[in-house]
């Protein structure tokens, strides 16, 4: 036998120095947090506008930005959970409109306000449960399912109202939720902050939150360790639906009416904010802090443009460009980060 078992590899096959080593301190910092890119752009925007627009940093303007985007914050919190779990909920925009419609109908038929609000929240949870059962339990594709319910929920709202909006102006609690203040802070901001605190806690400190990440990161490995995949996934969509319900109630309060034809396409803004914040479509990574930055980015951009007297239409162009840049940064980040240390 003419065995030749030990042969030295030829020159040029020796391990190349890791890409990581050449990055330096700032480069490594950039690698560490997903939301660093959007964070930097956000900071530059804030600095720029605080010098060029004297009203920008006023308490009133900050309050405005937060209040205007309170609903977005609530929807984004739910979507963050869904997307970390490697899903997408396209139906949130339709669900929150439908909840507003049903809330107005309940109030119109003389249901006590608190009960009506509770039922509206419950409806949101049920709408999420429908998604959850189809996706988590029957294992249908999340994109197709929520694209379907996006049309379905919106259609139900339109058919039920025939497209007519309905006033809820006479209801004190609803009015307080939409337009009141708590210790001088607008109620929607308080609600959004509370939602962020709870969802942030759940994601970081509970077993459920841990499982949301693990299943999103590798479903097969999670299954082999006995983690209940279906149950967790159903719950993820129920949370998204519940928060859509809450957002619908806040919207009703702000408009003092239901609005079955309004706000088409908000789900795309929601998803954009989550992606800007560094949650990747491949799941298992990202954080609520990042998503908050994503919302702030969108909110501050719109606010700054309007203060500077630039057409709001520019907002979409800038958001689009930054979103693509954020994805590019994330791709580069992962490509470099994938090198073994």
């Amino acid at each position, binding site marked *: 036998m003419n065995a030749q078992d030990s042969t030295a*590899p030829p020159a040029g*096959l020796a391990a190349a120095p890791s890409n990581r080593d050449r990055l330096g301190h700032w480069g490594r910092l950039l690698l560490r947090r997903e939301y660093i890119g959007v964070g930097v752009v956000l900071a530059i925007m804030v600095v720029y506008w605080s010098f060029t627009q004297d009203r920008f940093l006023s308490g009133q303007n900050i309050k405005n930005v937060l209040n205007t985007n309170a609903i977005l914050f609530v929807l984004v919190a739910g979507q963050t959970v869904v997307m970390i779990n490697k899903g997408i909920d396209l139906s949130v925009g339709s669900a929150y409109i439908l909840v507003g419609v049903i809330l107005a109908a309940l109030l119109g038929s003389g249901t006590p306000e608190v009960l009506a609000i509770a039922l509206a929240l419950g409806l949101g949870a049920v709408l999420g449960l429908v998604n959850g059962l189809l996706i988590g339990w029957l294992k249908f594709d999340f994109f197709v399912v929520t694209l379907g319910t996006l049309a379905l929920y919106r259609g139900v709202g339109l058919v039920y109202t025939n497209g007519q909006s309905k006033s809820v102006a006479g209801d004190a609690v609803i009015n307080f939720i939409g337009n009141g203040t708590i210790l001088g802070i607008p109620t929607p901001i308080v609600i959004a902050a509370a939602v962020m605190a709870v969802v942030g806690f759940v994601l970081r400190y509970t077993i459920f939150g841990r499982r949301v*990440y*693990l299943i999103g990161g590798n479903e*097969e*490995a999670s299954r*082999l360790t006995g983690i209940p995949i279906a149950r967790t996934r159903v719950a993820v969509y129920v949370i998204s639906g519940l928060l859509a319900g809450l957002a619908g109630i806040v919207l009703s309060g702000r408009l003092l009416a239901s609005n079955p034809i309004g706000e088409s396409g908000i789900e795309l803004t929601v998803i954009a904010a989550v992606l800007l914040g560094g949650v990747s479509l491949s799941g298992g990574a990202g954080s609520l802090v990042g998503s908050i930055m994503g919302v702030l980015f969108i909110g501050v951009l719109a606010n700054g443009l309007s203060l500077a007297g630039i057409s709001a239409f520019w907002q979409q162009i800038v958001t689009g460009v930054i979103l693509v840049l954020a994805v590019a940064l994330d791709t580069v980040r992962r490509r470099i980060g994938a090198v073994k240390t």
Partner: protein
Amino acid sequence: MKVSLSHLYKSYGPVQALVDVSAEFGPSEVHALLGENGSGKSTLAKVLAGLLVPSAGEFFYDGERHDSVKARSAVAAGVCMVTQEGSLAPELTVGENLLAAELPRRFGKISWSQVRRRAAAALEGFGLDLDPGAKVGALRIDQRQMLEIARALTLEPKVLILDEATSSLTGDQVEALFAALRRLRGAGATIVFISHRLSEVREIADRATVLRDGHLVRVVDDLPGTSDHDLVLSMVGRPPSAFYHKVAVEPGEELLSVQGLRTKRLRGVSLSVARGEVLGVAGLVGSGRTSLAETLFGLWPTDAGEVRVEGGRVRLKGPRQAIQAGLVLVPEDRKRSGLVLGATIGANLSMCRHEEISQRGIIRGRREQLVVDRQFGDLRIKAPGTGTVVANLSGGNQQKVVLGRVLATSPRLMLLDEPARGMDVGAKSDLFQLIGDLVQEGMGVIFISSEIPDLIALADRILVLYEGAVAGEIGRAEASEERLGALITGAHPEPMLAKGPR
């Protein structure tokens, strides 16, 4: 066409798949590539077909040099490869798939009548009874494989590479294929033939090249004059691993007993494992060895059979029930089904113990850290800390994380599916040491491996699976590479040796 390779290297990161391989495949010959799983056969075949770019080395078609062969230039040169993976479009018809490279056209538009006619002629020439209009997705797996070969033949290749292309074929189909190969050989083509079945190799091949661990170890010019025993020895023949010395453990009472286990892939498997015992499981890819581990872990439905753990009957319902019964699985593909690569070492280690590290659903950080630190220290995982993301660890350390996770559940029996794959000698010796320690504490282990020396080094008994059934069981004392190799490849073990050279 003559194909020659000179000092070819191919590496995937730190893994060397081909090391300094020089070979020549002549015209009018069927040349077999032999070797164990992971020996580099498929890599070599893919390099030949231009599907992989070699890391170093030269490459000649009929003496003409190609520096970097790309798929398209290989096809242009008349090189064609058929794999077992399947490259047909299931939604298209037999005819469309068969003639995909060049659909007959009339006035720039595809002529369907010609497609049918030509496809029918090609199928008949190959003795394949298929309707050219049938959808490929509706065919049986063996028919698809035949169609794939037929497609390669319609291209009239000068070099045809068949990589395990016969694995799903019936006897008659193999005969039809061989008849076609002989015709092609008669026309001057070079055929590179890879198969695990030695009998097929003997029937069709003129010469053979044996690869082992990416090295070319032998060129067999006189194939009929070389015995199965001799070939198998070339394929596996290393001295048994010297890096690990098994500590003898007196097996205790029976831990796991399996009687007549039948599933889609298993045809009545029975086995038993005692406390303190390592049962090795050998077999080819597709022999049912992974299926056995996964079935015991409750991942596949069973048709028949009885499984008992410490005398009590166990229903194989799912991972959670298996873990509760004291069975844990370390899966074959740790990246796909073992680890959450994007999560930290800590989060991966505590995955099986979520109930214990939490109170009313809230993670108790101190408790989790206790569990995590213990495994991190016991297994000597090399990382800056438990907060390191698993994707950044080496293969050996990643495998330790998977092991640490299952050990955290205090299992009674571990199912290890190829646990040492891709590990260097140091990591492997650490791993074997660890398994040895666990066995001494009374754990039972089922150890699946394609590396025969590893099986001999670690296992008390070795069970060989062949096509879903037990082909034999060999005790540690009687185990030799030749005997195991023969059982694994389904060759006739002793009688063939007695016959000697023909």
